[in-house]
């Protein structure tokens, strides 16, 4: 019994995907480390600036361990990161893992709220535009989509802020959150960034959902269902959607991964205390350990979501369920 489960092609494929994901994450950590270490810019020089004395440079290099070979530093960094020790920030000596913990929570809360609204909305709008393909609802939806993907996230943020906060006074323009805030106050504070994030991913997600379902709509069994006289929405719901589930899940996951990046910019616009702002602040200060740690976390989330997308599409493919 166990042997047959282990030998099952689906299990093998899933295990293969997860192993690939982990390998990719490992390689990504190498890339992030190499990107900040081996590039021509010297970390010590960029922290102290051009006017630094050679003595000060030498001291800082010794303090940062820059005199050891890159491989040694990489291994000790990676081992530390695996144990939850991300080192300390150069600029204020704070423990990075501590500083990051709460911010990561804030960011996931923001992205989670956006995802809860955006995913059902995008799927519904995708279904509507397939149902009314080529007619005005479809055209309106694709025009709005084109407009929303043509404006960068931060500008969308300011447009929303200008209309909702400054003109209408509906929500606060700056999303400050404290620990003592109740959930409702918190939701009120992040209403605008969530709106922006929803707008950012909605267009893509809807367009790709539409494409995935339209692809299935050309199958022979859809024609059969049409000839049986089924209602268009029912055909889409009962016949097209279940067969499009793998691509649709893929679309959702890809866009959630995209959300992770959109969050960086939106946090800066609304001065929200999350990971994105933490990263951007410390890039400007050239605080390399913080940048590395943030890069690693962002990469892990991104790779993880992509991996889940692959695993779900394997599981959703019935052809793989029964070994030949």
């Amino acid at each position: 019994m166990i042997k047959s489960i282990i030998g099952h092609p689906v299990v093998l494929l899933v295990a293969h995907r997860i192993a690939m994901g982990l390998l990719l994450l490992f390689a990504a950590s190498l890339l992030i480390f190499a990107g900040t270490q081996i590039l021509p810019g010297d970390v010590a020089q960029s922290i102290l600036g051009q006017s630094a004395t050679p003595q000060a440079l030498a001291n800082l290099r010794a303090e940062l361990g820059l005199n050891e070979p890159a491989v040694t530093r990489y291994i000790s960094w990676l081992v530390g990161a695996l144990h939850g020790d991300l080192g300390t920030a150069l600029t204020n000596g704070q423990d990075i893992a501590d500083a990051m913990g709460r911010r990561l929570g804030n960011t996931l809360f923001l992205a989670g709220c956006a995802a809860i609204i955006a995913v059902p909305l995008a799927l519904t709008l995708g279904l509507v535009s397939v149902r009314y393909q080529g007619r005005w609802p479809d055209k309106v939806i694709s025009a709005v989509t084109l407009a929303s993907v043509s404006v960068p996230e931060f500008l969308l943020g300011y447009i929303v802020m200008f209309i909702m906060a400054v003109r209408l006074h509906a929500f606060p323009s700056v999303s400050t959150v404290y620990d003592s805030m109740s959930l409702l106050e918190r939701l009120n504070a992040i209403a605008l960034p969530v709106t922006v994030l929803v707008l950012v991913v909605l267009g893509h997600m809807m367009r790709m959902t539409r494409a995935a379902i339209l692809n299935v709509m050309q199958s022979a069994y859809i024609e059969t269902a049409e000839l049986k006289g089924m209602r268009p929405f029912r055909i889409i719901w009962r016949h097209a959607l279940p067969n499009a589930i793998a691509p649709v899940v893929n679309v959702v996951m890809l866009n959630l991964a995209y959300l992770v990046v959109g969050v960086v910019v939106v946090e800066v616009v609304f001065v929200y205390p999350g990971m994105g702002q933490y990263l951007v602040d410390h890039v400007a200060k050239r605080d390399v350990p913080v940048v590395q740690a943030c890069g690693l976390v962002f990469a892990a989330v991104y790779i993880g979501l992509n991996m889940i997308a692959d695993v779900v599409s394997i599981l959703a493919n019935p052809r793989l369920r029964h070994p030949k």
Partner: protein
Amino acid sequence: MSRIPLSALIGMVVTAAYFLAAIFADVISPYGYAEVVGNVWDPVSAEHWLGTDSIGRDLLSRMIYGGQITIFVAAAATVLAFATGAFFGFLAAVSGGWVDQVLSRLVDLLMSIPALILALVILSVLPVSIPVLIGVMGLIESTRVYRLSRAVAVDVAVMDYVEAARLRGEGTIWVIFREILPNALSPLVAEAGLRFIFMVLFISTLSFLGLGVQPPLADWGGIVKENKEGIVYGIPAALIPAVAIATLAISVNLVADWVLTRTSSLKGGRG
């Protein structure tokens, strides 16, 4: 050849207008880009068509010069991305074997980190200057171009005329530039439009975060950054670049869409 549809025509006119404004910025802009000519955030007037900015510079002139920088950086990065991405993509498709494996896995790796995050990580140690920005953006985006050109070239590489060229004893470089490139050009041209828009959004985002074009120069993202404090007082100066970016992006998209449909219908049965 069919008539050019209205949407593509509008797209071309608007795109051309932006490019011309960028090229002739010195001639058409009413004031210098760093010249303080009024009060802080003067409203729209006959002297200042878009008002003035956060320190009293003419906003229209800032926008024209900003467009010049935005378009120049985005175009240069797009060219770099296509030169490297397409070359290595074709090379991988023509060579196959381990060359293809190594390049493709390297691209998988680069694409496993979101472009903005990777750019931020690299810019945290490099001096932020315009050549560095073009290099970083171009190389990060060349991964997308690589994927597309490899996919297109794999289809072309199995054609009889490629085999004929190989049997004639032509080298790999000759095959890439004389056989693959002309036959893979049209999908790449349409993609170039989309990549260019992505570059415009990319550089604007970096500048907005303070990690792109440095003051006193400013691209459109930088103008947003300079004027963002005005938003809470109801001054819409920071929103003007939004109009510029969005209209440029939409018009390039319209042209790219048309190029794509035109070339795919030209392809006929090869599909």
